[in-house]
């Protein structure tokens, strides 16, 4: 059964002369346990789709069903807890003057959950950080550790879905490998579903079962992992993105 079902999603941002139709009409389903990729260049609307699924962007048209339930612009707490986001830049997405513990407590307080201290310690262990890290501030952590905290903050509400917006783009290759491995382990252990936004086809092919290639607010192709690896993709733009992640190709013979 699909855990996410999106039909004719259209999103426009801005108003008056600044109004722009960022997402034109996208339709897709994501199965439970799947990792679904969204790839495209800056401004193609991939983060906007994620924003609408997370409930951050409220002005959208179309239908979104999450976990069998149709959701609208206003959502209940339990609907919001079902999907959580992890952002690109772990330097910008954690409050610099809050300790890690306080950052992790905030979602628990908003959602009125009990056993707060136990949950914080447990989630830190889940992402491979020592529980003593709760007393630290973000500037006392490395980039990879901060991204682990961001993942912990998303996991603490026991969501079914993680929405990952370029979770490793700001990290070095060696740290990226740690985070991607962690995400794979967590998905198996916690039975999670991911939507992963990235501009790097190699990361997408490593993680995802299927990927939607976005250009100018529409999906130009939805390809399976096997066809990415074999290069058996239909669309010319998908091919360009694949070539791009292999590096530079000289035009000269």
């Amino acid at each position, binding site marked *: 059964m699909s855990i996410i079902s999106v039909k004719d999603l259209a999103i426009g941002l801005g108003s008056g002369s600044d109004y722009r139709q960022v997402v034109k009409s996208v339709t897709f389903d994501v199965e439970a346990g799947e990792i679904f990729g969204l790839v495209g*260049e800056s401004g193609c609307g991939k983060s906007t789709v994620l924003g609408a699924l997370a409930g951050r962007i409220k002005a959208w048209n179309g239908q979104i069903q999450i976990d069998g339930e149709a959701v609208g612009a206003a959502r209940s707490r339990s609907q919001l807890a079902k999907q959580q986001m992890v952002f690109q830049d772990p330097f910008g997405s954690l409050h610099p003057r809050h300790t890690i513990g306080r950052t992790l407590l905030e979602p628990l307080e908003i959602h009125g959950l009990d056993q707060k201290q136990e949950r914080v310690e447990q989630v830190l262990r889940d992402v491979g950080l020592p529980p003593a890290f709760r007393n630290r501030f973000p500037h006392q952590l490395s*980039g990879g550790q901060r991204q682990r905290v961001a993942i912990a903050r998303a996991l603490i509400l026991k969501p079914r879905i993680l929405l990952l917006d370029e979770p490793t783009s700001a990290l070095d290759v060696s740290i990226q490998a740690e985070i991607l491995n962690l995400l794979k382990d967590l998905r198996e252990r916690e039975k999670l579903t991911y939507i992963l936004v990235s501009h790097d086809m190699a*990361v997408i*092919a*490593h993680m995802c079962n299927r990927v939607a290639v976005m250009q100018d607010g529409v999906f130009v192709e939805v390809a399976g992992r096997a066809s990415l690896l074999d290069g058996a993709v239909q669309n010319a733009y998908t091919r*360009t*993105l694949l070539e791009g992640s292999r*590096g530079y*190709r000289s035009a000269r013979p």
Partner: protein
Amino acid sequence: MPEQSTPILSVKNMSVQFPTLSGVVNAVKNVSFDVGREKVGIIGESGSGKSTTGRAIMRLQPSNACVVADEIRFEDVDLQTASEADMRAIRGRRISMILQDPKYSLNPVMTVGEQIAETVILHERLGKKAARERTLAMLERVNIRDPQRVFNLYPHEVSGGMGQRIMISMMLISSPSLIIADEPTSALDVTVRQQVLSILDDLIKERNIGLVFISHDLNLVKSFCDRVIIMYAGRIVETLEAAKLDEATHPYTRGLLEALPSLDHPRDRLEVLKRQASWAEA
């Protein structure tokens, strides 16, 4: 194609130190390398000292930094003893630098054309009209279709890819013999990146000059450069031909290659780099 003749740039045993409140930080430790008429890539993670190396060559390091070296020679100039006036004559004319993000490195209150023309007005004492013509020709050379129009635009009015092409034309207009490019395409989308790199590649070939290409992207350096220098914690751990990067022997380079998700060699789990203290030592 590395040439065996005298290198354009020769660095011997260069170290860069920064005094801080908690002691001296050795950002670069005893690095030695030559750059000929070729494309040399410097790869490293954040904090490995690759940008600091590039800046130290241009003598653009912060004033509290301390650069020591046995030799930093650029063509006939000793960059360590050159006066500040000599350096001003070298920077932009004989060595130029392309930075990561044109949004932050172009002057926002000057038109694009004026900033490019400024280089030749200052260095070659060209008149305004001649400088304008050179600028228009240079803009055309980097595949800008409508140079007359672009000349009068301000940096915020151009796209990232065009901004980087403008930066390249500014850096190449006075025919330098060495270009230091610090992550020149990291802020660009894939399709634009290919285009910008091929312009840079053509110009380097055409003018037979040297390029130092600082990047964290292994695939890009492997496919774009002739030679690669791999830095870790301020040291050069390995230097090899770019095409043979996959045959690297140093455990750090191997670790990086194995940590990289690859379309050609898919694997279920990525190897995690196990850092060893010995890599940071000589």
